[in-house]
């Protein structure tokens, strides 16, 4: 209901209201209902901004609000990333409220920033493992594809790094041992192991 009321106010502001009777009722409501009144003035302000008819002495006086908000903010010596993000988000919401529709765009932009930042934060988790994967620790070892079943004790990341290290170490040691084994007196082969039939 209130939604359609705002719509009516909007059309009134735009001079697009065709029903005389209704406009008169709306005017009466505007003088009574303070929320509606605010909306009315806000819509006019938006219109002015859009038509570039804003008076130069209009001040939005954000500085005081911001200064106050900063003063209220507790001093955080070692801010945590996640909390910082939340407070930024909260501030943007605070900002947005008095500005109605204009602020929607701003808050969308704000959300985008937060979204991007969160994406970056997520990448932080994924990236190191990729770095680990492409850096061979030693030997001929090239990055390796793998399939794994991991347990729960350590973090996935640590487990992954440890596992990669293990694999790389084994690979390079294998290559090394093979090189050394080529040594000549291996020609006379050592006794063959008792090979039994497959337990496969």
């Amino acid at each position: 209901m209130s939604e359609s009321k705002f719509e009516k106010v909007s059309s009134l502001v735009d001079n697009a209201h065709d029903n005389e009777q209704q406009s008169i009722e709306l005017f009466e409501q505007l003088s009574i209902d303070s929320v509606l009144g605010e909306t009315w003035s806000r819509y006019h302000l938006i219109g002015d901004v859009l038509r570039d008819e804003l008076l130069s002495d209009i001040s939005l006086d954000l500085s005081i609000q911001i200064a106050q908000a900063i003063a209220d903010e507790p001093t955080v010596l070692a801010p945590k990333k996640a909390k910082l993000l939340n407070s930024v988000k909260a501030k943007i919401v605070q900002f947005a409220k008095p500005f109605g529709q204009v602020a929607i765009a701003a808050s969308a932009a704000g959300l985008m920033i937060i979204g991007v930042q969160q994406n970056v934060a997520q990448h932080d988790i994924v990236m190191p493992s990729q770095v680990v994967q492409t850096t061979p620790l030693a030997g001929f070892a090239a990055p390796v594809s793998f399939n794994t079943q991991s347990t729960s004790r350590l973090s996935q990341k640590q487990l992954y790094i440890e596992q990669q290290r293990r694999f790389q170490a084994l690979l390079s040691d294998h290559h090394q041992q093979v090189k050394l084994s080529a040594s000549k007196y291996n020609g006379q082969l050592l006794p063959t192991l008792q090979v039994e039939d497959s337990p496969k």
Partner: protein
Amino acid sequence: MKILSVLLLLISFSFSAIAVDTSSVKTPTENLPSTTPISAKLWLERLSQALQNLNFNTSFVVVKNNQAEPYHWFHGRDEDDLELEIFATLNGPRRDILRKGDVVSYIEPEITPYSVESEKISGPIPAILSGDISNIEKNYEFISVGRSRVLGRVAQLIRIVSKEQDRFGYWLWLDQESGLLLKLAIISLKGQLLEQIQFTHLDITDSLVDSLKQLKKADLPPVIDVPSTNKDHKLSWQVNWLPAGFKQIKANRHRMYSTKQPVEFILYNDGLVDVSVYVSVSDDEQRKVEYVMDGATVVLNQVVKGFEISVVGKIPSNTAKAIADSIGTSATP
């Protein structure tokens, strides 16, 4: 009589087109009957001879894990019949393998260069290809498949296939003219390509190329002594199952090359493939088996009852698992 000669003429006419094609092909391989099963082995023997005796200068790329690693490869024999060989990586830090007769030097960024007294090079090309191919005849079959075009040349495809379903297959494309290797692929049991070596250029020369002449004059790093105690250590465990044909090359206790973790180690070889088995004490009591494939090389790692067991080699993961699971305490310590 006349009819016969006309008939002969006709036949020779109709075959002349084919003859053009086969005559160039036939000369270097005239002793290769292309249909009998012996031909594939003869091709491989010819490859071995070519790899040992020709002066060649070639480049190839090793393609695995979606990466290509380029190499330069020089080989030749000087007037004194000394065999000279260089493998050089072209990308990244230098990793060269130099060979002068039966001294092979490995130059790698991680450790000081060293030499080993050996007749075979442990590099990207399986050493058996320049050795005696009949050594692996017992466990592998050689199949001549057909001709195709590789590196702009006529190539014969030869497959080296394991008799049991426990090892990978090797496909070799050999130059019709010189017998040299033009392409090599390692194929899984399901026919999947795991690793391949594609030659990108091949020059066969009469005399040694300059880099080999330089190598002849150069001093190689000192030959390291592999202490005999490092060779055949008695270990308290043993591998009870291996694919047929694998022989123990050495057993020892050493520290891992990069992590310095102490391990007990046995190296096996079937003539074509090397398999390493590692056993060490682990902090964990149990850890599920983990695999990784580096091209065709599988690395298997698991912890069973406080012992970490690893198997590394160019074998299918099932084979590696069977080897790892067959490890038990030694009957005679």
